[in-house]
């Protein structure tokens, strides 16, 4: 089962895309397919969620600056020492902490990078950001193997899988 963690600051324009995407996904993804968390930042206690025995794959979703493509999708290596451990962590660090502390070396993780342009305080996601969200939503539907009810009813926003 997937654990999907979208994170970012909703007050800083596109920085909140990961969080917004998680909220969207949480509204329709069935709980037996994915557990979705929308959060402000990655914190150590998320390792407890990742260590749950029914979780086998983790998808982190975060806005990225200077990203040419709308989406990037990269498998993560587990490294508890990467980045700046503290109040906020890197996805690879969380994966490493979970593997080391909770004997979950089998856990695989990916980072879905969402192209962000405007990170200004107080900005709202614009039309371009909405396009990113839509593409990302489709992508997550694909990788989780989910075909949502809206596909069945012919929603133009969805690709029928």
């Amino acid at each position: 089962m997937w654990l999907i963690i979208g994170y970012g600051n909703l007050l800083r324009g596109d920085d909140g895309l990961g969080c917004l995407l998680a909220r969207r996904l949480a509204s329709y993804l069935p709980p037996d397919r994915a557990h979705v968390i929308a959060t402000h930042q990655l914190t150590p206690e998320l390792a407890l969620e990742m260590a749950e025995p029914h979780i086998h794959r983790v998808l982190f979703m975060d806005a990225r600056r200077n990203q040419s493509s709308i989406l990037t999708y990269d498998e993560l290596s587990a490294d508890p020492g990467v980045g700046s451990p503290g109040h906020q962590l890197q996805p690879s660090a969380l994966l490493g902490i979970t593997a080391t502390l909770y004997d979950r070396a089998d856990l695989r993780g990916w980072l879905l990078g969402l192209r962000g342009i405007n990170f200004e305080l107080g900005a709202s996601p614009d039309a371009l950001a909405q396009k990113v969200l839509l593409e990302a939503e489709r992508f997550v539907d694909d990788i989780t193997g989910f075909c949502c009810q809206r596909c069945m009813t012919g929603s133009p926003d969805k690709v029928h899988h």
Partner: protein
Amino acid sequence: MSQTIHIEPVTRIEGHAKITIALDNDGHVADTRFQVTEFRGFERFCIGRNFWEMPGITARICGICPVSHLMASSKAGDMILGVRTPRAAIALRKLMNYAQLVQSHALSFFLLSGPDLVLGMDANPEQRNMAGLIAKHPDLARAGIRLRAFGQQVIRTLGDRSIHPAWAVPGGVRQSLSTEQREDIRKQLPEMFETVERGLDLIKDVQERMGSEKSIYGDFPSLYMGLVGPDGSLEHYDGHLRIMDADGRILEDDVGPLDAMSLITEGEKPWTYLKFPYYQPLGPEAGMYRVGPLARLNICDFAGTPRADRELREFRHYGGHGRPVSGSFYYHHARLIEIMHALERIDELLQGAEIARQRTRSRADVNCNLGIGISEAPRGTLFHRYEVDDNGVLVDVNMIIATGQNNAAMNRCIGQIATHYLRDDRLDEGLLNRVEHGIRMYDPCLSCSTHEAGRMPLQISLYAADGRKLDEISRG
């Protein structure tokens, strides 16, 4: 306009610090400066908003201890409404505040300062970090994560989310706890108590081993300030303000919110955006005070809960002869005692009758044009002062944040460390490590983004008496 605004739980600090060490003609340390170069102007852009929005807005100051701002802001709002806040709401607010204390202190001790304390100050920075701690003491790391998760879960249970919960409001709180939720929290307490006991054993052992750190890392006389309960007990949500001097004499007591801020002057220096609050009657030098766990344990007469009181009696031996404990290194130990106390209080609150009362909010409109809310954040005393017009629109906002109040102490602490460890006119990794820890002891907002042992984005410059830059070392 006030320049003391926070990025995270405390003032407007983010990411990078710059430390300047100036030598005299003899090559001795003459001056050290801990410089914060970020500015957010938070108070200014609150003006014009309605006070009802302030708990939600000010919680956004910080992703680390938003609950502290929530408490101070809603208390300021209570005063503006002029209502009696329902007892259930006060109990629930206290519960969230204690949970905040638990999660914040747990992170600080077990995961952020833990690598320094367990692996040693001189350990290679590549290993002296959370990964190194996990590799060497996985049980300790797991326990620390569980303790922090517990605090976060309590906050989330009350406020729907652990970061930026929009739950406390002027006049009360938005929602209560069910019987099942209360029981779910209570049944986790034994494990949490066990973790704190382990932490206390660890810190006592560390203090035995780190004799020089205890005496060098910020051991100096100062004033201490914080809230105490009506009976002089350890207090984090309400009570009154007390100020104690370095000899343990009480300079101010029974100070209510209307008078508290008049005792403090926010000094400024041209080289940093972080202000230097001091106790006004004694001036900037003699009036330097410390806040936070160490100060709170110094100023209270007793903790008021059995386990914390037992630990507090032992802790006070470090002061000697009835004097306050003056070494900043003891902030770590004080944090653990506070976690113990918070867990005991959480247990009391959950079993009490008040928390189960149905009425959780009093409703009114503006009945007073001034609101002051004071609460104890994990890092120290937090003040929110709002002036509103008759429609509740803010015309003036001032917030005094814990990290700012420890600014002078942090500067002095760095000076002590530099004086002791600086060799010749060269900066090395060892000094950087120790300066890092000197800052980390106070767990300032700065640490939110720069806590990593060995990688705190830090720049230290060393200047000769004639102004020549002798050396510079930076990291991050």
